[in-house]
């Protein structure tokens, strides 16, 4: 932790993140600062432990999703200095994004909205890994996406890369 930061139980600055479904997550500044969006916001309004700033979040970020993001930010605010070092941190990252695809999508949205670039890298990579080596039909099936190309368009796309449709 950076110099000058007090113990969590001391009078450290806190911020409350409030999800649309009414749940509140109280986090310290180091955790909040992992998010570019929160950092910007808090630099303008400030927050304290006695009277923490409450930040409402959009409905797409449910408490379950926010829980994941907060978990990531807390761990990364502590950095690799903890026991286990960078290796443990990498393992933490890997395990964090072992999510079902719908949850993965929501966390991706949240990471983008809250501007947590490295978490966004992780989730994007996880999505990419999940669909690696899938044909177009398999990718469609995986995401539950129905092709909205016209017959003509589909024909053109198929002729561009026939192998991708096998």
């Amino acid at each position: 932790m950076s110099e000058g930061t007090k113990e969590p139980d001391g009078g450290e600055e806190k911020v409350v993140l409030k999800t649309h479904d009414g749940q509140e997550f109280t986090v310290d500044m180091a955790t909040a600062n992992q998010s570019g969006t929160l950092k910007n916001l808090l630099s303008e309004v400030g927050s304290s432990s006695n009277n923490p700033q409450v930040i409402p979040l959009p409905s797409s970020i449910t408490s379950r999703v926010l829980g994941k993001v907060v978990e990531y930010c807390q761990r990364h605010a502590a950095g690799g200095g903890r026991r286990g070092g960078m290796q443990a941190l990498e393992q933490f990252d890997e395990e964090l994004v072992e999510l079902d695809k719908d949850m993965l999508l929501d966390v991706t949205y949240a990471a983008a909205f809250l501007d947590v670039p490295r978490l966004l890298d992780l989730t994007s990579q996880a999505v990419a890994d999940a669909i690696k080596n899938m044909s177009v039909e398999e990718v469609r099936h995986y995401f539950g996406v129905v092709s909205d190309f016209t017959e003509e368009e589909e024909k053109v796309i198929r002729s561009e890369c026939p192998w991708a449709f096998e």
Partner: protein
Amino acid sequence: MENANISSTVTSTTSREEERQVEEETTRKRPDWTLLPPDLIIKISEELSIPNRVCFRATCKTWYNAVLPIAVPSPWLLIPDDESEQSHSCTFLSLPAAHFFTYSPIPELRGTRCIGSHAGWLAISNTQLDVSLLNPLTMSRIHLPSFITLPTDDLILEIDVFWMDDELIDVSAYNPPKVFRDRFIDKLVFSSKPTIHNHIAVTLYGTYGDLAYTKAGKDEWLLLGAASTKDHYYEDVMFHDDKFYCLTNESQVQAFDLSADCPTVAIVVQSLKHNIRASIINLTYKKCLACSRTGELFMFLRRINQPVLPLIIELRDPKDFMVLRANPETNLCWAATNDLGSMSLFVGANNSILISNEDLPILQGDCIFFIDTYTAVSSNDIEQLTCKVRWFDLKEERRDIYYASSSSQLDLASVIWFTPSLK
């Protein structure tokens, strides 16, 4: 809902219970992936290698429009990494689009070289002579018997003699199996859509040109056809329509059916030896076999400067390239042609490919693409391995170089034609 409060001091494990409760309380509809904002679509697409990105982009309109066009029509030229066999990445050049892209990591490629390619699959072998088939797009892999089981006399001895001749060879780096693979394995062809339980492979190998085959369930390579001599040997082999077509040095084509327990063979095109000219053709040209979708056979001949012929019987005004065709269903004889039927031919260590010119907008006419690999001493006295992809326009008799590379890695594998497939 106070119990769902997570303070900064609570670790993730203690919140699992609470999360579950929250999950139960929260009912929401399935997220719609097509509503991903363009920047996130691009972000995900950039995490994908080019072939996967092509599939991702073709999923729906939103994604198609968000991701930049990726023009990678096949065939692709597989270019071995400059680090030689230590690398697990490889570079592809999409020939019609003239677009290079790297595809990695493919850990299976590390320590191996490519000795064949057919319908999305590569045949690879390491320096211990382990052999396998690999689809680099799906990462499926099928192990074949080791080349150590190839029927050959005094395999290692043969190489010993070879090496002792060369004073420049660093004896400590002497690796007979590697030398055997690099010098004596010509190519490996195999059946389409191979699976662990259903595949057949044939390799062209040895000092002159022997054939050996293996198939699912066998643990060794077995001699196919007659053992070679310096006067009778095989020059090329290709797979088409469940049969292996094998071309002899006398331009005879034998079709082997290896699906049953015992191989059966039929002669589908007769030798060229009816006159002296035909015999000289056999000696003066390097031959490759190809087959169109309809089963018509083509033989591509490339003149080699081989001073083995007495001067008096040299061809008058010889052509550098020739194509002969034969239709096994109607005619058992080769006939010269300058027409590939609006198709172009790609030959090399791969199963030869004929592609309609409609799918190759770069081409004007019927062309043959072939690969020349040789070592030469450069101007600054360093020996270099040069690899050139040349083409020859059959009708116009024009020729040019399409791709060329040089490397100081003298044992680098040659480039190879590859057509992607997800099967």
